[in-house]
């Protein structure tokens, strides 16, 4: 099967994830949207891996997964911290670094 449909799917998922980041104020949802974008990228990696006939893309996707796990752990810890102090999980509320 041609890689094109997979890539189009990856593109769609990626942009939908981007839209989620842009539109949703709930930090958790925005964060999940980021995960969706990572997944989309992974799909592209795996597709290309098959297209080129080597496994480097799969390895890359594997590493993306592991790093995503690390990122989620820290990110969620930060969100929990912010929620503890501010009673809010909205990304718009965490804008105090602005002058």
């Amino acid at each position, binding site marked *: 099967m041609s890689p094109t449909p997979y890539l189009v799917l990856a593109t769609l998922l990626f942009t939908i994830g*981007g839209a989620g980041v*842009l539109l949703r*104020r709930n930090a958790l949802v*925005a964060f999940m949207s980021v995960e969706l974008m990572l997944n989309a990228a992974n799909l592209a990696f795996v597709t290309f891996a098959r297209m080129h006939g080597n496994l480097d893309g799969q390895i890359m996707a594997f590493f993306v997964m592991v790093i995503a796990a690390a990122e989620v752990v820290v990110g969620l810890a930060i969100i929990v911290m912010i929620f503890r102090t501010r009673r809010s999980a909205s*990304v718009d509320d965490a*804008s105090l*670094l602005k002058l």
Partner: protein
Amino acid sequence: MNSIMTHGLAAQAEVHQVVRDASGLISSTWLLIAFPLLGAAVLLLGGRRLDKTGHLIGTAASCLSFVMAVALFVAMLGESGDARAFNVPLWEWFNAAGYQVEVGLLLDQLSMAFVLLITGVGSLIHVYSIGYMEHDERRRRFFGYLNLFVAAMLLLVLASDYLILFIGWEGVGLASYLLIGFWQHKPSAAVAAKKAFVVNRVGDMGMVLAIASMIVVFGSSSFELVFAGAGDAPTSWLNALGLLLLLAACGKSAQFPLQSWLLDAMEGPTPVSALIHAATMVTAGVYLVVRSAAIYDLAPEARTAVVLVGTITLLMGAIIGCAKDDIKKALAGSTMSQIGYMMLAAGLGPAGYAFAIFHLITHGFFKANMFLGAGSVMHGMNDEVNMRRFGGLRAAMPVTFLTFALGYLAIIGIPPFAGYFSKDKIIEAAFADNILIGLCALIGAGITAFYMTRVMLMTFLTSKRWAEDVHPHESPRVMTWPLIGLAALSLVGGAALLYVGGGIVEWLEPVTGEEHHDLPLPVAALIAITLVVVVAGVAVAWLLYGRRPVPVEAPAGNPLTVAARRDLYGDAVNEAVLMRPGQYLTRSLVYVENRGVDGAVIGAAKAVGGLSARWRRWQTGFVRSYALTMLTGAGLVVVAMLLVRLP
């Protein structure tokens, strides 16, 4: 004035003796400094547990140093006349790119004289202080400072390098600062200490520049190399060096125009005034000039400046001394005046060096004597210093009176007291050099007689004017014995120094050289004139203060008196000439800084700030806005790549 310079050129005698490396006892010269330094360290670091014994430790350190000095003196006497200079190298301090500084001591006749004076008078004052400071809680600290001062002063006079000398120089400055401000709870003392410190820094500037110049010209700051190279150096450099050293000397010795701190320095405890501001530290300037004889010998203009400074100061000090009602300040004016004499003598070149030192030593005796006497009076009068509140103390404190009287006779130059010999020699030398200068010195002697008689009359003779709650009494023995000792020295010191074993002139001759001048009139005549002037001064004082009752409140007085009371407007002049313009300068600089430099900088910053305030609106702080920007940017990058890649 020309005559001063002309003979200066003739003074290029080879006066410098061979300096040998020390051996035997003399190689232990460093102990002189080590004793008081150790004492200071022990006292200052030892803490409260030494409160009970601190004064004894301090006095012992000083006395040990004196014993050592005497031993060295004896050892030195054992050498032949021109082989009495010893170099005591200790260690190499640093050696940087050819500039080498050796920490070493130079023990020759000049420094020996100073060492004896410092340790001798110093030890007596230590003893005196035991009694004077008895009720002070911080006596241990006081003795620590005294020891520190003695150590620094000894380092100053023993150093074999201008840089090492400078360490001692600053050390005495520090000790002086600490001791003037010893009663720091009094604002006046704190201010006086600060003033002394600041004015001294002006002099230090000259010293530092002088040392730097030496390094430039001679490549070294050690006495040996500087003096050896002086002959080949250009006169302009030597003059500059001389003037810079003079500036330094003026600062330390309270000479015009840096005299203003000395009178305020009387805020310190009286032994301090006696030790530092009469006998030792203020003479450091004279020492510096005499020590730098090799430079001054070849720098006639600088020497003229020294003479001028000395003359002006001796008259100023004398005039100020006439008007002061504060006994210590009157004595301080006298000190200025006397040091003016010494500077004058030192400025005369080889003809006067020895006399300068001679007068310095005798002055050390009798001025210390009188200061301590004044301290004794204050001690008995509840720390009252206003002479208008004294009067008739002769009966109440006979020992003090007698010793003070001996000092008085010495300072006004009545034969055979110490001052007679030393001051007469200076007046002679001054006359021999220049009649005008001589006359000034002569007038100074008259005024000295006037104001010292005034002090004597107002304090000890005349009627009682003291407050009702004051019960004058004689001081304890620990205070009177040093007085007696110093009085004895005031009595016989002059004659002894001049005549015993060839006298001080011969003793110093290997260092300072010697030169004789013809007087324009016979010596005996000059002596007679001088005595007449002195007696006239005494008589005037008697007429003004002895015959009439002294008012408790000071009368308004004539303009000269008013001026003298205000230190001849020294502070005012400083303020007007230096402080005000300085303030205006700083203010205008600050203005320029604020409006000009800062204006440009702040303006630029504000421009940037304003611009960024506009731009900041892009920075909403909302992550989602940033994400939008990023997404748009990424899209644009893809577009750009497409445009480049695709046909």
